[in-house]
């Protein structure tokens, strides 16, 4: 048994783990990142499933928060650090697929054909959403105090700054922002638009990645959240997710950090409620002064630490974190004649369609008429399929995989008749695969649903929003903590900064 001494061990080389590692390595800490897979990136990864079949397997593209790109001097293409306030027209198209083939691009110009009124309102909506996203971004940059416990002046300082930011945002926008959070996406959009087609297309972004329907409370918040991460409606840097995490990995190394892949952490070694190091699947122990886990809170606390070393009420709260993944990814390698345009395409014809697609998930069933979001990268077509719940009521993912794959292809082929004949190879990533391959408990892309009772100071659980855990020297830095959810790096950045 070899024993190494590091300042910090980071479990998982997902984008948040790498962001935290880079910040800490940059401070001069001796950092070791341990990754179970052979490839770094976690869910922000571009990988190959065969010859010519290279694709962003989980998140389609994405970008880090601009301050992270700047702080870490990451050589990412400019668009990867697009500010959310950049004009929408500068971004790839967001297209709502229409049964008649007359697909609708969601921008002020194109929606005129559906509704002059909606087109006139569109710039004001974009302005509000950009503003709301920037307020949320500020909230995500503020490390939450451990409300309702131990609320002291020192911890309240960050909140003061946040309060100031909210005031500067302007009284009206601030009120509208706060009001929008618990609203349903439908209600929020009702206030701007009359066309169901327009509303549904935008609402689909609000439920993307979440087990929620557009008539669900809190989808106003999730719409703002996804708008912030995407910098609008459509995905950016599609096909280049891996470049983000590769750049981060290079930064970690350039700052003197170490990354080891194909190393599975079996457990976190705890003595007297203090984390001492990690124990690997091969039995090796590595000690460190601090452990940061970018794995989801449930896995970190209940599997890697174990309930035995944690206070009972904390365990209960951790068990109660809602994961509920219901996304499947279907990647298709084609001969290039798929006929699908570039941009982000949504099968989201009406609000009711989306809500009914979600209804199935409530009952542990796969949506018969699913909400799809489609991106292309050359010959590869990627379908994001909702809803395909991790916890199937009557069946298992070993059985249902093919059904979802067929349903996805059939649904999309209804809009693009050439699709089927163009398919050369296919790859399904079910919620079970998301758990087993990508380490996402219950296939939840966000390490815990972004619901109103699981955000801000209640993320990951009430009283523990400051990256700490009941185990001294063990911190959470993944998507499941405040700032996390989707691709942004905020959680990793905040965790590194909280260690000061």
């Amino acid at each position: 048994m070899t024993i190494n001494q590091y300042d910090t061990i980071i479990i998982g080389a997902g984008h948040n783990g790498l962001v935290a590692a880079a910040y800490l390595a940059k401070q001069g800490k001796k950092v070791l990142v341990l990754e179970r897979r052979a490839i770094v990136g976690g869910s922000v990864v571009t990988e190959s499933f065969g010859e010519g079949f290279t694709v962003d397997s989980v998140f389609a593209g994405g970008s880090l928060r601009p301050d992270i790109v700047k702080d870490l001097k990451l050589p990412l293409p400019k668009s990867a650090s697009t500010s959310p306030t950049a004009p929408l027209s500068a971004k790839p198209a967001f297209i709502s697929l229409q049964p008649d083939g007359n697909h609708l691009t969601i921008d002020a110009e194109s929606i005129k054909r559906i509704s002059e009124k909606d087109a006139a309102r569109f710039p004001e909506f974009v302005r509000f959403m950009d503003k709301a996203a920037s307020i949320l971004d500020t909230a995500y940059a503020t490390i939450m105090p451990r409300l309702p416990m131990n609320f002291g002046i020192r911890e309240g300082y960050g909140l003061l700054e946040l309060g100031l930011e909210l005031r500067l945002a302007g009284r009206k926008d601030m009120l509208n922002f706060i009001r929008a959070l618990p609203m349903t996406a439908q209600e929020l959009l009702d206030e701007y638009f009359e066309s169901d087609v327009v509303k549904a297309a935008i609402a689909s972004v609000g439920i993307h990645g979440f087990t929620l329907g557009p008539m669900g409370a809190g989808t106003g918040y999730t719409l703002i959240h996804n708008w912030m991460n995407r910098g609008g409606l459509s995905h950016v840097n599609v096909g280049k997710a891996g470049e983000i995490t590769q750049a981060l990995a290079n930064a970690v190394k350039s700052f003197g950090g170490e990354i080891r892949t194909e190393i599975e952490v079996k457990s976190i070694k705890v003595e007297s409620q203090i984390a001492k190091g990690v124990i690997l699947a091969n039995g090796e122990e590595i000690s460190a002064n601090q452990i940061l886990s970018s794995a989801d809170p449930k896995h970190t606390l209940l599997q890697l630490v174990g309930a035995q070393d944690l206070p009972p009420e904390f365990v209960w709260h951790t068990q109660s974190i809602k994961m509920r993944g219901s996304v499947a990814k279907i990647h298709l390698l084609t001969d290039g004649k798929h006929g699908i345009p570039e941009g982000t395409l949504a099968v989201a014809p009406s609000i009711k369609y989306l809500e009914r697609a979600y209804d199935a998930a409530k009952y542990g069933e796969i949506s018969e008429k699913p909400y799809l979001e489609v991106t292309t990268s050359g010959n590869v077509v990627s379908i994001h399929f909702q809803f395909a719940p991790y916890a199937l009521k009557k069946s298992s993912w070993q059985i249902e995989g093919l059904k979802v794959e067929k349903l996805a292809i059939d649904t999309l082929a209804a809009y693009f008749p050439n699709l089927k004949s163009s398919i050369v190879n296919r790859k399904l990533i079910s919620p079970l695969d998301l758990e087993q391959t990508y380490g996402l408990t219950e296939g939840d892309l966000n390490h815990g649903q972004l619901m109103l009772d699981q955000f801000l100071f209640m993320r990951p659980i009430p009283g523990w929003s400051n990256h700490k855990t009941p185990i001294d020297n063990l911190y959470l830095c993944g998507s499941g903590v405040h700032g996390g959810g989707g691709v942004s790096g905020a959680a990793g950045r905040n965790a590194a900064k909280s260690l000061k």
Partner: protein
Amino acid sequence: MLQLKTTPFHERTSALCQPRNWRKWAGYFAAGSYEHTLDREYWAIRNAAALIDVSPLIKYVIKGKDAAALLHRVTTRDIHKMKVGQVVYTGWCDEEGKMIDDGTVTRLEESTFRLTAAEPNLRWLMMNAVGMDVEITEVTDDVAALSFQGPNTCKVLNIVAEKPVDELKYFRMMKNKINGIEVTISRTGYTGDLGYEIWMSAKDALPIWDKLMEVGGDYGIAPVGILAMDVARVEAGLFMLDVDYTSASHAWIEPQKSSPFELGLDWTVALDKPGYFVGRRALEKEKREGSVWKMVGLEVDWVGMEDIFKRVGLPPQIPGMAVRGSLPIMVGNVQVGYASTSTWSPLLKKYIALAHLQKPYFEIGTDVRMEITVEHHRQHAPAKVVKLPFYEPEWKKK
């Protein structure tokens, strides 16, 4: 509507309970006393053999590979050190080190334990058993229990039990038979006297009661209710949940909660035991920094009482049973604590109380004054802080 249950001994106890003074105990009817005054029952505890139906005690059987680990985690004792057949008294705390409940843990077999509690604790146990290979079963209704207390109880058990109990040490348990019926007998109790608790299947309750009453007749046996036991337990310095402390799980405000150190249970808190247990950090801190409150014994000065009563032309008046009511304790004109149970001790011939005092007034020998009511007027009788227990006969542990 809440319906109180009856215990497996109800057919016998209800026939004997003359004053019909049923008390509510954990959802069961429990006889307050069997006679109209408590004297004979009290003296049965101290001089002969008292038979007390304690079936309402909440009982859990905890079984499985991790049974010891669960109790080690929940309670403050080092459960891994327990031998099969050993019994320990323990409290258990929340994460802030405040008492939730207290009871006994009996290691029935290597990986089978019985836990008694004053209140239901199943959810707390389940919450603590996450990831453990353990089965928790509440057996309150299935297991009947008799507390058999007093200096003659050993002799009675030696006659009725298949195996003699002479060798059964204090806080040890044995498997035995009475009338051919399997029972477990533990040398435990809530009176501070020589005594045993007999645990049996509910269906076997009546023949065992009958056998003990029959043989015990020659040894002064008396069925005893919980009022006489209340006097004896105060003499023994034993406190009671919801009377002398409030469970952290249903206290309204922080000051209502108590730590085991504050209740004088220092000896049950094994801070040197390995691994995590609930409340460890908070208890370590309290141990380091010292407790702000302590539960102590109080002896009220009889001459001082006489002086106060003399002013209205009366001799001292004392309630005829233990009083479960809060009485302010003063030093000068400042309240420094309160008595939670006070009683006349017939054996010690003293007016005694379990009192909760603030630092530094809990030191032994401190002079304080306890509130008494003299002809509807509040007065303060001089009292002294003394060591607990008030009474400990040599035969308790011998």
